[in-house]
């Protein structure tokens, strides 16, 4: 049981505010900065250096952090402003909540950002288990259950889950939170296939969720606000595609750390001016890097792709790849967005259809809902991304809770190797819990793997 602590969101706002104005000229080797770094935990130091060492990464991270500070502050003050809060998973479009004047909180995003708390996330992962959850449940959401149990995060007004059918632990943890804390929950059923009938079924389910949210909240969907959110999202999508075009180049000018900022923005803040601000800054940085011929240092030795999720407990991996290993971290599955459509903003109906179709194509929902070799599923997407982005190798982090991916890793990896000649590495770890496999061990395993590719 953790000791009584201050509200987690308050502390997250403070941290993001502190890192939202990183100076353009910052010498991380200078004595004052080194002295400051010495006061941080190893994980905090690693994360800070990952975002602050490179000037371009520093610039885009400052904008991203400012947006995150503002976002968490808005969550924190929501009740005082008379607004309701909904917890949603990563595969649930936030735009609709903006249009309904409900504040959405991405459970996985909150879980991931809990690493900035001085106590870290481990005690919350453990507390959730101590109070009943099986220890095999996914650490991507389990930390949030621990935060609720500890009382350092307030319970939301609603839960909206969009993972039923694509991920058992994800949908189950929402049902658990609903029953445990008596929170109304809405579930969106994900069909097994990805054809027209499936898209229509899913869209209809989404319409029902939107209608139920209006009833539960007493708020009416504001068409103008929805259009504005969708317009902003479309602008972000266009920039994401432009940056992805740059990623296809050899060498890749897009800094590795962009993937982390991009993930948080795309999953939580799309539909807001702040997200657009971030993507415009990121594009500017990437263009500048490309013009200057900058890429991973000292040279792009390996183009690397995570075939599934990445490592989130320590963001130093991206930095280490880039600065020490010459490895371009092109993307992981959580930023596989090439098939997300531009939303037709003609009317509410077209916007809801566009959002639903986009959600069905969000990472994981798209690839893990059916069978591994169906159209628009994991194998087909991996073959596309590996080929299009010219990956030399792929890896599976072995995220312990993702049993279904463990269950098809081999047949998928074998097929990628057979069709494209691209080898894979299977690690054993946990994306959010460093105790399963530490970053040092992960680095050793990558080093050995990369040596075999030479």
């Amino acid at each position: 049981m953790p000791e009584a602590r201050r509200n987690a969101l308050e502390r997250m706002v403070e941290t993001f505010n502190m890192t939202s104005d990183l100076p353009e000229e910052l010498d991380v080797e200078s004595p004052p900065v080194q002295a400051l770094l010495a006061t941080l935990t190893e994980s905090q130091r690693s994360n800070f250096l990952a975002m602050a060492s490179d000037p371009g990464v520093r610039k885009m991270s400052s904008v991203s952090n400012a947006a995150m500070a503002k976002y968490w502050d808005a969550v924190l003050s929501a009740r005082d402003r008379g607004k309701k809060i909904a917890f949603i998973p990563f595969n649930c479009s936030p735009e609709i909540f903006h249009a309904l004047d409900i504040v959405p909180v991405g459970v996985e995003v909150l879980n991931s950002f809990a690493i900035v708390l001085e106590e870290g996330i481990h005690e919350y992962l453990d507390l959730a288990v101590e109070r009943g959850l099986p220890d095999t449940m996914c650490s991507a959401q389990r930390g949030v259950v621990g935060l609720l149990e500890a009382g350092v995060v307030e319970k939301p007004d609603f839960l909206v889950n969009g993972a039923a059918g694509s991920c058992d632990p994800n949908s189950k943890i929402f049902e658990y939170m609903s029953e445990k804390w008596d929170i109304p929950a809405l579930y969106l059923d994900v069909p097994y296939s990805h054809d027209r009938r499936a898209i229509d079924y899913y869209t209809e389910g989404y319409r029902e969720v939107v209608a139920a949210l209006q009833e539960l909240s007493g708020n009416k969907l504001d068409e103008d606000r929805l259009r504005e959110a969708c317009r902003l999202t479309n602008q972000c999508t266009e920039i994401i595609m432009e940056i992805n075009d740059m990623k296809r180049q050899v060498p890749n000018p897009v800094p590795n750390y962009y993937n982390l900022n991009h993930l948080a923005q795309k999953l939580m803040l799309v539909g807001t001016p702040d997200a657009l601000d971030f993507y415009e800054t990121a594009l500017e940085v990437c263009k500048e890097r490309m013009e200057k011929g900058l890429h991973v240092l000292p040279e792009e030795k390996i183009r690397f792709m995570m075939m599934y999720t990445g490592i989130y407990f320590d963001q130093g991996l991206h930095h280490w790849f880039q600065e020490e290993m010459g490895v371009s971290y092109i993307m992981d599955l959580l930023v596989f967005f090439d098939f997300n459509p531009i939303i037709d903003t003609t009317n509410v109906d077209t916007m809801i259809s566009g959002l639903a179709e986009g959600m069905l194509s969000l990472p994981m929902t798209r690839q893990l809902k059916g069978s591994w070799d169906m159209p628009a599923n994991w194998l087909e997407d991996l073959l596309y991304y590996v080929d299009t982005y010219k990956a030399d190798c792929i890896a599976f982090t072995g995220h312990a809770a993702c049993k279904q991916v463990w269950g098809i890793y081999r047949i998928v990896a074998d097929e990628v190797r057979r069709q494209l000649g691209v080898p894979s590495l299977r690690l054993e770890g946990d994306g959010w819990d460093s105790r399963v496999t530490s970053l040092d061990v992960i680095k050793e395993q990558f080093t050995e793997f990369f040596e075999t590719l030479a």
Partner: protein
Amino acid sequence: MRAFQELAEVSRTLENSHVDAWKRDGKKVVGFVCSYMPEEILHALDILPYRITGKGAQDTSHADSYLTRVNCSFARSCLELGFLGQYDFLDGAVWNNGCDHIRRCYDNWKAKIPFPFMYMLPVPHKISPQGREWYKGEVLKFRSAVEDHFGVELSSKKLSDAVSTYNETRNLLRRLYDLRTGDSPPFTGAEVLTILSAGTSIPRAEYNRLLRELLEEAKPHPDGASNGKVRLLVAGSLMDDAEFIANVEDLGAIVVTDALCFGAKNFWNLTDEGGDSLENLIDRYYEHPPCPRMTGAYPQRLAFLREQIERADVKGVILQHIKFCDLHGTDNALLKRDLEKDGIPVMELERQYGPLADAGRIRTRVQAFLERIGA
């Protein structure tokens, strides 16, 4: 107890004598894995539905290369038997996307050891009118796929007969469970699981005949079975292992009912026999006592458990889940909370399936539980 002996004999082997006789007649056998598969459709097409399990797997060494150590040992045991050719007598198999583990079992089976007929019948993960229509669409597609592959045609009359035949099974099993509610149940929980297990692998008419005989032969246990024994309910992950139950009962308990997809949840509700049989069948399977895979249906699952507890005068509940089964593991945590609020002692137990089961640890835990509730 001739009927029981025959059922026990059937449950001991995968390819039993009834299956052999069926195949000698030139008829087909199709496997399935989940209680959301409407067996009556196969039955009406003169195809024997046969429930695939991992029973008899000695280890999971072949399956572990594909489904790994973090996958449920039931799914691994099924796949292992597939790799070993133990299910080669099947002419096809139908899966449901019951859980992440079993659908990945299907993926590997399809990739590595496919039957001539491999089919996935997806089931929605929530109970709603819209979901019911989706499920209907899937059932219709399934029916067409079976008809096309096996060159047969489903008639309304045969389907209606199949519904009646299966309802008869369910009524007979309800009578069997009624006998267990008394002071001297004629069968132990292990024996009942043996009876249920046999029913998943023989022609339904034959099973009904044996059940009728069994019920005629059934007499209250001479010892007055409850005699100091703790009346238990077992719920949770898939359980077809009579030895597990015997192990529990050996410690001074008697399992008098269950909430298992291999047990009461699989036969509790009947199919309506008036009107359109296919529509009725779809309603029956879609709305049968829900698996924890059905989101938002926790209140129904709790209500079903409470109903069984009251009917059978249960004094303690074992909520077990196979390791890595997040669906049952999570539900069990909530059920424990709610049942204990009702004053029912509950034990949560994580276990492995089949060859990986650790009987010694389980005996120790059960013994402690029985002591706790005053046995």
